[in-house]
């Protein structure tokens, strides 16, 4: 699978608000289209402006930093880890102040309120997909990356998990059980990776920095020094240069 380098691959800041970079200096028809269809939808009574504002603000508030924090806490506090594995929603509330019932009191129409954390071990590796429609635990991980939503990933991951993981740069030994979780109903899942070696005595903050979104989906493993999700491109060390190209 060639994912290339899309915006969603670069998660350097774990979903923190991006610094106020300037906007592009033109108003595209895409921007106009979104506004126009939204206004018409509201006028036709499909939803209210207030509900839209509430869901939009919620969408802006979520990001993978909460997932990273959850993992770091679970790694450093065994009692919290037990709670995470027993009742994911409660653990989010008590450990992070994150409420899965937002923004409606009953959750969102795609995320619901059944959050299950899947614990990896040295002999068990979880990987998450939703073959039907790319359901994703948005309250704790933010918006899903584009590759997760493609039919390419969804169709192939269930049948060829090892091949797909290899394309992400993750080779899992054959004796380790790979367990694919196809989230086709109302449960939403996240992976609790194995705490890597070399992180003894690390603070929660240091640990948080190496738990990236891809680690919590299951396509990457956390390790010291790895603080961003970048997928291998395997650029040639010696790119071919043809005289024809030089002439263009």
């Amino acid at each position, binding site marked *: 699978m060639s994912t290339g380098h899309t915006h969603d691959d670069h998660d350097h800041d774990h979903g923190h608000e991006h610094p106020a970079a300037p906007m592009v200096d033109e108003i595209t028809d895409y921007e106009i289209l979104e506004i126009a269809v939204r206004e018409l939808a509201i006028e036709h009574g499909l939803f209210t402006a207030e509900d839209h504002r509430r869901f939009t603000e919620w969408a802006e508030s979520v990001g993978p930093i909460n997932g990273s924090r959850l993992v770091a806490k679970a790694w450093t506090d065994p009692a919290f880890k037990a709670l995470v594995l027993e009742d994911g929603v409660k653990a989010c509330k008590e450990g992070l102040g994150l409420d899965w019932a937002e923004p*409606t009191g*009953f*959750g*969102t*129409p795609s995320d*619901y*309120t*059944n959050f*299950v954390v899947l614990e990896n071990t040295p002999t068990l590796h979880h990987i998450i997909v939703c*073959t*039907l429609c790319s359901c994703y635990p948005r309250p704790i991980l933010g918006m899903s990356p584009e590759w997760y939503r493609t039919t390419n990933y969804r169709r192939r991951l*269930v*049948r060829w*998990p*090892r091949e797909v993981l290899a394309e992400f740069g993750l080779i899992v030994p*054959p*004796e*380790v*059980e*790979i*367990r*694919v*979780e*196809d*989230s*086709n*109903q*109302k*449960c939403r899942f996240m992976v609790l990776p194995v705490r890597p070696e070399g992180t003894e005595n690390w603070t929660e903050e240091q640990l948080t920095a190496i738990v990236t979104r891809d680690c919590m989906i299951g396509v990457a493993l956390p390790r010291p020094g790895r603080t961003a999700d970048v997928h291998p491109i395997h650029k040639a060390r010696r790119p071919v240069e043809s005289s024809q190209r030089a002439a263009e």
Partner: protein
Amino acid sequence: MTANEIPKASGAAPRFKVGDRVRVRQMPNMFYTRTQSYVRGVIGTIAARTYKDLIPEEDAFNYDGKVEQYYIVRFRQKDLWEEYPFDNDTLQTESPEHWLEPA
């Protein structure tokens, strides 16, 4: 009742417990369903009970507004896909009770 409000009423007692072997039923594909075709007729094991919820309206011949138990069912990948080469690999997915029968 919105799709998000899980009914407080407990409905019937769950039929299956963790560890039970179950088979995903082969039901006609007349309706929209969240039960994937790749698990139909396959035997797996109950890995967990998740929650109770209404059967989706489109997913039953006789929609009667009843609540039923949902489960996570675990399958061996070798049982799902021909020529799957790795013995230890598994796949889990969720299923409402009426899609399952004892195996």
